[in-house]
């Protein structure tokens, strides 16, 4: 929304109470600054996610402090931890219960690739069952990395053709 072109910016003297912009920009601005995460804490990474939510790192600065433990109220699933095959279907079902639009962050080595668990019980990356938007490396990633991933995801959301997606069947959720 912010542009260096003075002509295109809001001038109350000329335009009164009217702001002219693109629908995409408004929708994406709203969405990207109010992401309600679904904290899918499955293992040790969950602790670091709590750290990112605490006062020291304060994920609220980026508008994502409202951790919702109900999928129906959240729009970004943060998969924080080891995805076992036993747990995987439940994760997918929780994801399916989230309303569109929704995004997924795979946090840590385990959620991204299975990590050090090259074994019979661990799914080798949650992207086998979920469409992951951002991967975070680390075991566990530091809270700064989570914030960085969040900022990357906000950038991604701001590039989305949201207005067009509103009228597409598959996005109606």
């Amino acid at each position, binding site marked *: 929304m912010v542009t260096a072109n003075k002509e295109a910016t809001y001038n109350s003297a000329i335009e009164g109470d009217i702001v002219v912009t693109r629908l995409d920009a408004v929708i994406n601005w709203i969405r990207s600054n109010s992401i309600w995460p679904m904290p899918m804490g499955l293992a040790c990474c969950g602790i670091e996610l709590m750290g990112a939510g605490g006062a020291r790192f304060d994920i609220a600065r980026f508008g994502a402090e409202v951790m919702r433990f109900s999928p129906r109220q959240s729009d970004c699933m943060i998969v924080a931890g080891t995805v076992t*095959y036993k747990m995987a*279907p439940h994760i997918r*079902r929780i994801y399916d219960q989230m309303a569109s639009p929704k995004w997924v962050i795979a946090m840590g080595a385990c959620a991204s690739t299975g990590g050090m668990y*090259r074994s*019979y019980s661990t799914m080798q990356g949650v992207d086998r069952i979920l469409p992951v938007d951002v991967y975070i490396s680390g075991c566990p990633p530091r809270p700064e990395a989570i914030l960085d991933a969040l900022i990357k995801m906000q950038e991604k959301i701001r590039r989305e053709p949201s207005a067009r997606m509103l009228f597409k069947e598959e996005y109606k959720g």
Partner: protein
Amino acid sequence: MSDAISETNTTATSGIVATLREKFPQSAEKITPRASADHPAVNVPADAAMAILTYLRDEHGYEMLSDLTAVDWAEGASPRFTVVWHLLSVTINPGVCLRVAADCASDTEPEMPSVADIWPAANWHERETFDMFGIVFTGHPDLRRILMWDGYPHHPLRKEFPLAGMDDELPDPEVEAETKARLVAAPMAGGPFVASTGNLNLAESEPRAKDQSWSEENPKAEGPKG
């Protein structure tokens, strides 16, 4: 392990073996000392295991079952499965465990009486042993898998089960149909990764693949197995 300690253990073991033989004369020849590097250990026959364990708990103060597990000796070995109970007395001799072991009679459908009635702690341990080894604990109040899901077809700690796992179906057919994801054998890439013990230089002792000549990008050279 110093000689002094193993000597104490040998003495303790032979004491326990003598006591048990006296109390259970009909199984006397099957009650034997068991090789052990640390704690006293005895072998007992499976059919008398329940009576012996109850006796140890009631008369010798082993009021706590600190662990229950099993050994799979090898595919084709006989006896193949051995169940091991770790008993602890917190009143008489805390710090020394008594290890009691019994071989399962059947190598294909191993069974062992459940001790969940006399030590409630055994409940989940027996479920885990059942899950991992497929040993059925007769008389268990609720013998379901505990780590893997109901319906999983394998017992992962059996010797014939590969560490990487086997291709299989997801626990939930709906999710499998939706995502096309399945259980797949994990890429081992030269693993399992083992630490070299006794090496104080941590850079050298950290876990490494035994065979680093191949990886996911460079396939393993064809050759004799192992």
